[in-house]
C-alpha cells in the first residue's frame, strides 16, 4: 500500500488536511501516515505548500515507488 509519512507539525498541516479528503490518514508518535489503497497522488495546488515544504515533503519517508515528483504533483505507486 503506497504510504507517505509526514511529520505531524504545523508546516505540513495543509498537506495533511488535503490528503484526509481522499486518503486514510493515521496519526501516531508525532507522525502522520497517508495511505492509499492503490496510488497516492498529491496535487501541489491543493496542498498550498511553498517551495521549501513541498520539495521536502518526502523527508518523513515513504513506502511504494515514486512515479512522479515535480513542482505540481507527487505520485507514489505500489511496489
Amino acid at each position, binding site marked *: 500500500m503506497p504510504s507517505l509519512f509526514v511529520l*505531524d507539525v504545523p508546516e505540513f498541516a495543509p498537506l495533511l488536511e488535503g490528503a484526509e479528503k481522499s486518503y486514510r490518514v493515521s496519526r501516531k508518535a508525532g507522525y502522520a501516515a497517508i495511505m492509499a489503497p492503490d496510488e497516492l497522488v498529491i496535487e501541489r495546488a491543493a496542498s498550498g505548500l511553498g517551495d521549501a515544504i513541498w520539495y521536502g515533503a518526502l*523527508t518523513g519517508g515513504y513506502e511504494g515507488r515514486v512515479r512522479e515528483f515535480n513542482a505540481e504533483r507527487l505520485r507514489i505507486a505500489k511496489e
Partner: protein
Amino acid sequence: MSDTIPALHGVHHTAFPTWKPKSTVAFYRDILGLKVRHAITAKGWGPEKHPDFLHFFFDAGNGSTIAFFYYIGTEPRPDLTGPRGYLGTARHTAWTANSPEELQAWRARLKQHGVAVSDEIEHETIRSIYFRDPNGYPLEITLQSRPLEPADIRDAELTLDAMCETFGDHESKATIEDMWRRKGAMVRQIMAEAR
C-alpha cells in the same frame, strides 16, 4: 579518561580571507553597523613566505564575531571568495534575527544601501533573507519561526541515520529515493511500536 563530553557555547568567530579590506569594512561596519572588536597586524608570522597580514573582527551579536584576513601583496583568489552556484552558497554565514519586524528591517536597510537582497524565504522552521558581502561571501539573516519540538529533533536524527546507512561516505550509488524508503521503514516501525 573521563566520559564527560565538554560543551560548546556558540560561535566565537569564523574567519575568511579578503582582498577588498576597504569595501569589507564599509560593508560590515557602516552598512551592517557591526562594531569593530579587534584588529591584529603581523609581519612574517608563520611559515616561510607567509605574507604580512591583518586580521580584524566585527561584532555579530551574542558574543560572536565575523573575522577577515587581509594578506598584503597576495593574488586575489576568486575561487575562495565568490564561487557561484550551489557549491558557492553551501558555505555561508547565517545570523539570527529576533522578530519578524527585525528581519523586515534588515531587508529594508540592505535595499536602502543598494545591497541585492532576496525576498523573505519561508523554510520549514525558519524564515530567511539572503545577500552577499563585497567579497562575494553568501550571508543570511534568519528568524526561527517556531521552537523546535522533540518530534522535530527525533525526525532529524532519523534522517541522519537514514543518510549514513544509505550513502556512507559517498561510496554508494544510492539515490534520495533509497534514503526516503529507508526512512519510511524507520518511521513505520516507530508508529507501530507507539501505543
